[in-house]
């Protein structure tokens, strides 16, 4: 076996893995370690940080203000994940059961946004949702039409159109995050559903179950590994989302990543920013550990 050959030959193994190891060490482990050390340090002057081993930064992070932002970030990320799951599951099912001819195009449609810069996508979305955006213009036209129809049948016209505030609030943040993270949910779900033996679905129908019951009793349980993967892969980046709440959120919609950014930039408090960052990382570790510990669902053959 080729695989065993390179495992047996230590030098080949080293040659293959060393560059990756060095890369990870230099550009991931060392910077993370520096940030980790910062989180136990104190600011001394503008650029100087003393590693004093203090826990003051972590203590400050447990203040109500920061805990509430952590809590809110979790709530937003959880809501985004849930909405992604509710929208993504039928989408993944539709792709799975689409004809061979259509499937690659549908998958392309899901993946296409990935190939566009996040900033550009976010601005495009903002143009859509702004007070002069397409959404509001469309609603205004409908409003005008309804008003005209009312006068036509001899009623008072509707009051003047007021644009709906679709941007710079929590709705905009959730909307934007769902938009950005939907592909993360759809792709693992599709992968799980695609592996599903179609005859299991047919067997369920054959035994008298309708489509809804077949989905709830057969498809969802067997797609559970994909659902868990999709939830994790959506929840974790949504939790650390920075750009979307920054651009689309209002003053009350900041998430934890925005607070961290402010510590490193405006507040110039790197030790506190580092502490907040690591609390976020620990939280994600816990999530991943929980996923690893979950009851193993038998693989679909």
């Amino acid at each position: 076996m080729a695989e065993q050959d390179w495992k047996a030959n230590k030098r080949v193994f080293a040659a293959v893995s060393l560059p990756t190891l060095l890369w990870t060490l230099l550009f991931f482990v060392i910077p993370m370690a520096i940030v980790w050390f910062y989180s136990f340090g104190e600011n001394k002057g503008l650029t100087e940080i003393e590693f004093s081993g203090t826990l003051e930064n972590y203590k400050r992070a447990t203040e109500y203000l920061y805990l509430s932002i952590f809590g809110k970030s979790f709530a937003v990320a959880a809501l985004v994940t849930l909405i992604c799951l509710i929208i993504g599951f039928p989408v993944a099912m539709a792709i799975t059961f689409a004809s061979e001819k259509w499937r690659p195009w549908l998958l392309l449609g899901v993946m296409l946004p990935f190939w566009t810069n996040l900033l550009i996508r976010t601005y495009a979305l903002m143009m859509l949702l702004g007070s002069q955006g397409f959404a509001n213009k469309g609603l205004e036209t409908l409003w005008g039409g309804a008003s005209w129809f009312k006068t036509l049948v001899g009623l008072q016209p509707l009051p003047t159109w007021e644009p709906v505030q679709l941007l710079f609030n929590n709705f905009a943040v959730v909307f934007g995050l769902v938009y950005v993270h939907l592909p993360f949910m759809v792709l693992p779900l599709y992968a799980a559903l695609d592996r599903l033996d179609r005859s299991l679905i047919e067997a369920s129908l054959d035994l008298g179950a309708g489509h809804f019951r077949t989905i709830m009793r057969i498809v969802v349980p067997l797609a559970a590994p994909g659902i868990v993967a999709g939830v994790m892969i959506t929840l974790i980046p949504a939790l650390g989302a920075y750009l979307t709440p920054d651009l689309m959120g209002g003053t009350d919609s900041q998430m934890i990543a925005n607070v961290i950014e402010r510590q490193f930039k405006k507040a110039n408090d790197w030790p506190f920013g580092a502490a907040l960052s690591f609390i976020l990382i620990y939280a994600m570790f816990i999530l991943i550990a929980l996923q690893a510990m979950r009851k193993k669902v038998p693989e679909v053959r």
Partner: protein
Amino acid sequence: MTDAPKKPIIQIQNVTKRFGRVAAVDNVSLDILAGEFFVLLGPSGCGKTTLLRMIAGFELPTEGTILIDGQDMAGIPPNKRPVNMVFQSYAVFPHMSVADNVAYGLKIAGVKGGEVRDRVAEALDLVKLGGFEDRMPDQMSGGQRQRVALARSLIMRPKVLLLDEPLSALDAKLRAQMQFELAELQDQVGITFVTVTHDQDEALSMASRIAVINKGEVSQLAGPSDLYEYPANRFVADFVGSVNIFEGKLTLDEPDRAAVDCPGLGKVYLNHGVTGPHGADVWVALRPEKIYLHVPGEGKAVRAAAQDAPDGHNFARGCIKGMSYLGDITLYDILLESGARLRVSRPNLSRHDQEDFTWDDKVSMHWRADSPVVLLG
């Protein structure tokens, strides 16, 4: 089985199924009788599975009607049809225990807990899986999973049980055992079984009637022995069992006897009439096990042939060019003097029998006058 009422439970009337331009099933009409073990036999891609899936409701006929117990199935989805299916892959739900798998349909139908438990136990006993209730499918062998699939369908007490290649995934020994068990089970529960298979042994051993399907059409519909001994055409003769087929001309055609002159095989005499005009081009099919081998010389063979055929008929000479020893029988590949090849099989009646003939031996052969089959198409 013989005392079962012979009314059709499934009526397939002029059913055609086209995928794009290809007709997978082409104007098929057949009746499946209540209580019989019906087999759809054919090579892969012949449309037999499509036909089965149309009965189950997973495919819809492009044209034609399917009636189950007199009721038109058009527009009736699979979950509302009085049939159940055992899938080729068994489709046992991997996330449910054996008991939950078997109980699935009953629970959907709203049957109460106590009755579900009793019927699950009963169904598992029927397929000899009593005590396996709490097993998970991944702890079971392929044969056991198949029994779970069988129990899961039988518990629904369907009017018809459909089986898609039920034995194809089992090893040879288990397959032979399951052939018997399926036939026995069918006899026991009295439900009509409709099985799809490409394996002629399977079909012959289990079926009460077999429909041979070729290119989407029914080639012949008959009982196992009729199918084997009286194939209606070359496709059936060749597909069911192995056979030697020779082209020839009908030279004698009377109500009680017939003769065919085959350039490859020689003069063939039959002690019964055939349907076909005098001088017609026909084919003669001769099964390998119906040919007697003689060694050496030919006197004995000629005398044996002459017992029920005129001189010079039903007799051939050749040379053994190949042998394959299969344990119970030995197959001989014989080069005839005409240059044609003939396959002959011979039971190994004694433990040293196979030493009688060997490569390059000159042999003569004869067959009885009721052995050849004359085919028109």
